[in-house]
């Protein structure tokens, strides 16, 4: 059993190494993720963010602008999810006084 587990882990690791050997090199200009037009022919949103984030919000940290301004409703939803998790702990984890 132990040998079978080790064999599965070794095979899976070999599969991952084989998969990474075909990845594009990091930082090369003609990578797919650096293209201005996506495979379906639509403009990529990341280019707009990179070009206009500082002009729109005068904030050097592009990630903050995307999270808080361009995708603000998404972040509001994340916060409501966290609040819901906190409320659930009141219902589930808090001990009743009569037990």
């Amino acid at each position, binding site marked *: 059993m132990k040998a079978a587990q080790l064999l599965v882990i070794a095979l899976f690791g070999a599969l991952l190494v084989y998969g990474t050997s075909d990845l594009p090199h990091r930082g090369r200009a003609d990578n797919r993720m650096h293209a201005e037009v996506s495979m379906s022919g639509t403009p990529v949103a990341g280019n707009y963010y990179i070009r206009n984030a500082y002009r729109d*919000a005068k904030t050097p940290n592009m990630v*903050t602008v995307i999270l*808080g*301004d361009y995708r603000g409703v998404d972040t509001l939803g994340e916060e409501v999810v966290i*609040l819901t998790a*906190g409320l659930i*702990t009141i219902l589930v*984890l808090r001990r009743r006084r009569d037990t």
Partner: protein
Amino acid sequence: MRSPMHSPIVLYGARFLSPYIMLFGLYVIMHGHYSPGGGFQGGALLAASVLLMRLAAGQEVARLQFKDVWAMPLAVLGIAIYFGAGLVGVIAGGYFLDYAHLPLPGVEPAKLRYYGLLIIEVGIGMAVMAILVMIYDNMTLGEDTDE
């Protein structure tokens, strides 16, 4: 906690570290415009400083730093700050969460977005800190009082 270590070294170490972690959390929230960070990360750091005292000193002493009944109002207030910043934009004639319509006279729209981002980061930080503390408090409620 169920089996607290009554160790003065742990207690004084936590008392020494907790204010610095809290200060670093405030820095991460306020400096999120210029460096990696923001409301979520800073809120987690603030919660870490509170939970360190909770773990080291037990609930009774740690309540002197942050009462457990404050967590729920603080979380709701954080969400309300975020939602209110969006709603003010709607009332002032823009879209929801469009900070360029915040009613601050004499500030250009790009700078208004800057301040809007700062407001919502503070709201996120308050909510995340309060909710993390609230989860810990609800998990350990009543476990250290019956000693």
